[in-house]
């Protein structure tokens, strides 16, 4: 009993530094952000209490609604594409063939690069007479406006984001794949299962914990996309690439409406917590026994 209490005590003692950090850098700022959201404030003048008017104004702000819809649209495309591509790459590089390490390094390399630097490079490549238009011209496609098009700009950002993230999640999936006992595959081969059947009945179900992690992380990443938009389009053209986080930044740091920006931040926080909770509940149900 005494030993248990002692263990409990030391356990919490070691948690304290992290808890203090969490309180100082997460809990307290969140509370302050909520309080700021109840005021009209431009950061340098006197805050004026406005109750929940900032939250009410959100629903009559067509650009905020457009940004939210852009975010949902972006995430709905980014999450499955990232999942499929990174899992495919992981399956490809899992094979123990000579020189496979080079491919792993190539696919992972983009993750190690600065997103800002990569964004600038892609910005040049997306120019009307840039590399991307040069490549698509070989397929008989005429010059495309890309970043200059309200229809295409978001997909350009998606491409850059995928380029930067698939390598990282490939490694995550690789770790998950390596955890699956080989005996299952050997047994299935003996039973006559083909590649697709082995993937569907063994790999995919046993990858569930990894898949859950990847889906939730990429979902959060999709909702929080900012840096590529900041460099590539600045939210344009005409709000076509403005997402929730970017519009929040624009509202606070370009329009100097910190109260209104905080209300967007708080609402986004509630949306993400709620959606993450439901995602975890759905994805974690029906655990697969190894």
């Amino acid at each position, binding site marked *: 009993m005494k030993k248990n209490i002692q263990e409990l005590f030391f356990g919490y003692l070691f948690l304290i530094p992290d808890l203090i950090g969490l309180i100082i850098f997460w809990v307290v700022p969140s509370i302050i952000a909520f309080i700021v959201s109840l005021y009209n404030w*431009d*950061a*340098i*003048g*006197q805050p004026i209490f406005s109750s929940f008017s900032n939250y009410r104004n959100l629903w009559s702000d067509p*650009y905020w609604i457009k940004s939210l819809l852009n975010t949902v649209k972006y995430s709905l495309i980014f999450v499955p594409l990232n999942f499929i591509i990174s899992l495919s790459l992981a399956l490809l590089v899992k094979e123990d063939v000579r020189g496979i390490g080079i491919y792993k390094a190539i696919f992972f390399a983009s993750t190690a690069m600065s997103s800002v630097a990569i964004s600038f490079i892609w*910005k*040049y490549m*997306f*120019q*009307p*007479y840039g590399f991307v238009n040069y490549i698509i011209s070989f397929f008989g496609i005429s010059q495309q*406006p*890309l*970043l*200059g*098009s*309200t229809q295409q700009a978001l997909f350009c950002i998606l491409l850059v984001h995928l380029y930067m993230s698939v390598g990282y999640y490939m490694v995550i999936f690789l770790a998950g794949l390596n955890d699956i006992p080989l005996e299952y595959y050997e047994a299935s081969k003996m039973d006559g299962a083909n590649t697709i059947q082995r993937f569907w009945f063994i790999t995919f179900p046993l990858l569930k914990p990894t898949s859950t992690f990847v889906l939730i992380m990429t979902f959060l990443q999709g909702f929080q996309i900012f840096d590529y938009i900041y460099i590539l*389009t*600045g*939210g*344009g*053209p*005409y*709000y*076509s690439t403005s997402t929730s986080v970017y519009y929040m930044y624009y509202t606070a*740091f*370009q*329009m*100097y*409406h910190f109260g209104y920006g905080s209300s967007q931040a708080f609402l986004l926080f509630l949306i993400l917590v709620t959606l993450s909770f439901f995602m975890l509940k759905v994805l974690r149900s029906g655990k697969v026994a190894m």
Partner: protein
Amino acid sequence: MVKKGVIILLVLTLIIPVFFVSSGFTKDKVQVRFWKFTDTFADATIEKYIKLWNQSHPDIEVIFETFPWGDYTGTKLSSAFATGQGPDVFFISPGDLLRYVNAGLAQPLEKYLSTEEIKDFLPATIQSVKVSGHIFAIPLEMEPVAIFYNKKIFKDLGLQEPKIWSELLDTAHKLRKGEKYGIIVDVAPGYYQNFTWYPFIWSAGGDVISKDWKRALMTSQAGVSALKLWGDFIKEDVAPKTLPGSGPDITMLGNGIADMMVCGFWGVKQLQADFPKYDFGVFPIPPIDNKHKSISVYGGWRLMVNAKSKNVEEAVKFAKWMGVDQIDFPLEWCTVANSKFSPRKSVLKAGEKYYSTPPNDIFSKVLQTARSEPAFPPEIVKAVSDAIQGVMFGGLDAKVAAKQAETSITDFLKNYKGGIPGM
């Protein structure tokens, strides 16, 4: 024994430096913090004069700090003032001036300036830093906007400098060849795009709002036409929809993305330095037709003193020394470190030779009818920006875009209680 000695040494190593950074050793003189954005080429000039100041004013030490452009114009200055850590003297843009005045952070300066000193400034530049009768900043520079062009291509194609908008659009079409566009205008939403668009509404005889800030005027013929022109630049594919660099970056012209570019006076030095063989000319932004006049815009940073500074008097003394008391710094800043006009008549006279040399002489003429960048609050900036973006990329008709902007601005003006610039 050794272990004790090591512990004592460690403790001393931690404690002793505290005395060096505390006020005891360094604070027998007043310190004035001076902030601006980083300009790796021109900042050396400021550092040189600050060194001179510090040598000649042993009781007032100026500490100069610069920050990357994005940080300074984004979060740095606002965050610093929000936490009470704002600098004593700082560069302020025309767009931000009113916000700091309305927040009570701008020190009124008229009591520190003699009548002669005020008269030395071009009247319009003093008006541009005046709110409710008080002078809230010291204008340092003026950068009028015009259209740079490739002289050689114009000559090869037998083109003349456009005199009205229809000729401008027509010339842009004639220049559009292969990968090269006819004209570059800024495409990114924001202050700079608006800044380069204002001359077009003015040159069509209109304005964004009335001088008394009571009415929005975007749906005037001038407003609609100016929006339509920029929309046509994009729709008719004579201007690129995306740019590899930022809007003010004249190197895009030097690199051959287009053969005309709307840009400011700062572009002269930049082109001469980076593209010495590029034969460029400059012409004023044309008016809409022959019945109207060309009216350009000039920007230019100002020196503002923090009204909440603990050392206001010393800060004013320094700011005045830099921008008012002498000719040397303003002349070197405007004609050597940069290509800018000084807002002071005495400095313009001292730099007469520089300002009368082509192509600077064109900008000298442009400046005579140019207006200061409006000190609009962010709400008006956004309304105008949304209208420009709407016609360029959102498929909006110019009248619809103008109407939306006018409605937003009208709603804002109804509840606006702050100062009115220029009054």
